C-alpha cells in the first residue's frame, strides 16, 4: 500500500472509519505520544511559564492529549472533520478549528509561544488541485509565512514529518527560510530504518537559544529500538519533564491513575455531564484491553 498522502486528500482519507481506526490503534498512540514528547523537548520552552501552543494538524488529539497532560493551553487545527469529531469525543481541552493549513492562518501576530506538528507536513507536499495557488510550493509558502507571524519572537516551531526524499526536505526548509524562520532539520536515529524520525526545528528570532549562536538541538542516536538506549532516552525525557514540573511548582496528577480519573470525573460533573460513572473501589483499576 502506498503512503496515505498519495492515496486521497486528507479530509477524505481520514473519514469516519479511518479516524477511529487510527485513533484506537495502540501502536500509533504510542508512536504519536513519543514524538510529541520529543517535539516538546525540542521546543525548549522556558520552565515555569505555562505556554499557549498551536498543534498543527491536531487530528483526533493524540498529540493534543499530551499537551493537556503537560499542562499547556493549546489550539488545534485540522482539515479532516472526522478526526476533529473524534477529538471532541475524547474531550481534549484544546480549542479546535477546521482549517486547511495550506490556506494559511489568520492568527494575530505573536499569538503563540510555540507550535508543534506531528506527522502532517508530508500532506502539504501533495497538490490537491491543479489550480496554480494550490501547488505545493504556494501552499507551503502561505503556511510558513502565516505561521511565522502567528508566533512570538523569540519562539520555536517543531514539525515532525515523513519526507520521501532529501529533495523534499530541501524544498521545505528553503521555503521556511524564505518565510523568515531560522533553524533546520534534526534527524533522530538516522541509521535505523524503523526508528528514524525527521524533525523540522524552526526558530523565530533566536528561538530562545540557550547559547548565543542559533544552535540546533542534538539528534538522538542509536537505533532507537535497542532496549537499553531507548529506555535511557525515555528516562531522560521523563526526568526533564519532572524537573520542569517541579520548577513550575505544579503538582500534576499522573494521567490514567485513580486520582486523575477522579479529578476528570469531578470536572465533567461540574461541566454538567450527567452520564459520568459513579466512583467505586474499581475506579482507576487497570483493565484488560479488549480490542
Amino acid at each position, binding site marked *: 500500500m502506498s503512503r496515505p498522502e498519495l492515496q486521497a486528500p486528507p479530509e477524505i482519507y481520514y473519514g469516519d472509519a479511518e479516524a477511529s481506526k487510527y485513533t484506537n490503534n495502540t501502536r500509533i498512540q504510542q508512536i504519536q505520544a513519543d514524538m510529541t514528547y520529543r517535539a516538546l523537548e525540542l521546543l525548549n520552552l522556558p520552565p515555569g*511559564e505555562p505556554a499557549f501552543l498551536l498543534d498543527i494538524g491536531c487530528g483526533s488529539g493524540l498529540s493534543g492529549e499530551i499537551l493537556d497532560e503537560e499542562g499547556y493551553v493549546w489550539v488545534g487545527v485540522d482539515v479532516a472533520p472526522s478526526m476533529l469529531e473524534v477529538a471532541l469525543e475524547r474531550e481534549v481541552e484544546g480549542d479546535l478549528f477546521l482549517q486547511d493549513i495550506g490556506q494559511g492562518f*489568520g492568527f494575530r501576530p505573536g499569538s503563540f509561544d510555540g507550535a508543534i506538528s506531528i506527522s502532517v507536513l508530508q500532506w502539504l507536499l501533495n497538490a490537491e488541485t491543479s489550480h496554480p495557488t*494550490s501547488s505545493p510550493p504556494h501552499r507551503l509558502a502561505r503556511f510558513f509565512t502565516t505561521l511565522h507571524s502567528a508566533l512570538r519572537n523569540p519562539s520555536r516551531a517543531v514539525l515532525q514529518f515523513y519526507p520521501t526524499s532529501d529533495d523534499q526536505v530541501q524544498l521545505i526548509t528553503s521555503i521556511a527560510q524564505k518565510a523568515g524562520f531560522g533553524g533546520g532539520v534534526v534527524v533522530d536515529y538516522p541509521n535505523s530504518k524503523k526508528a528514524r524520525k525527521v524533525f523540522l526545528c524552526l526558530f523565530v528570532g533566536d528561538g530562545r537559544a540557550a547559547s548565543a549562536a542559533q544552535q540546533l538541538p542534538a539528534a538522538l542516536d542509536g537505533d532507537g529500538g535497542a532496549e537499553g538506549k531507548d529506555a535511557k532516552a525515555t528516562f531522560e525525557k521523563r526526568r526533564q519533564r519532572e524537573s520542569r514540573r517541579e520548577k513550575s511548582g505544579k503538582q500534576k496528577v499522573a494521567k490514567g491513575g485513580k486520582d486523575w480519573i477522579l479529578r476528570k470525573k469531578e470536572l465533567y460533573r461540574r461541566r454538567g455531564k450527567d452520564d459520568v460513572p459513579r466512583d467505586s473501589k474499581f475506579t482507576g483499576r487497570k483493565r484488560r484491553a479488549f480490542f
Partner: protein
Amino acid sequence: MVRLITHNLLACHAKGCTTNNYPLKFSNVKLALREADFNPDFLRGFLPRIEWDALVQASRERCSTTDLLKQLHHVLLETHIDEGSMTCPNCGHVYPISNGIPNMLLAEHEIG
C-alpha cells in the same frame, strides 16, 4: 470549542483582507460555560497579548474588579462558543461555528 481567548487572537485570513479584519463579529451564538483549572501564571503571561477592546466587545460580562485574574480566567478560558458564526468586519466573510468548531476554510477565490 472556541474560547474567548482564541477568538481574541483570530483575524480574517481571506485574500487581500488585511485591514479592519479584526475582531470577527459573533452572531447567533450559543454560549456554554465550562469550568477549567485556574492558572494565574498562564494568565499573567498572556495579559500582554490581549486586545482589550476586542475582549470587552466580545464578552458581555461586567468586570467587577474584585479579583481581576479570576474574572479574566472565567471570560477567557471558561466561556465557550458552541454554535453561531463569526463575521469579518471588513470583507464580510462568515466563519460558521458548529459543534464548537469554527470552519475557517476559504473558497478558492479567497485564498491569498
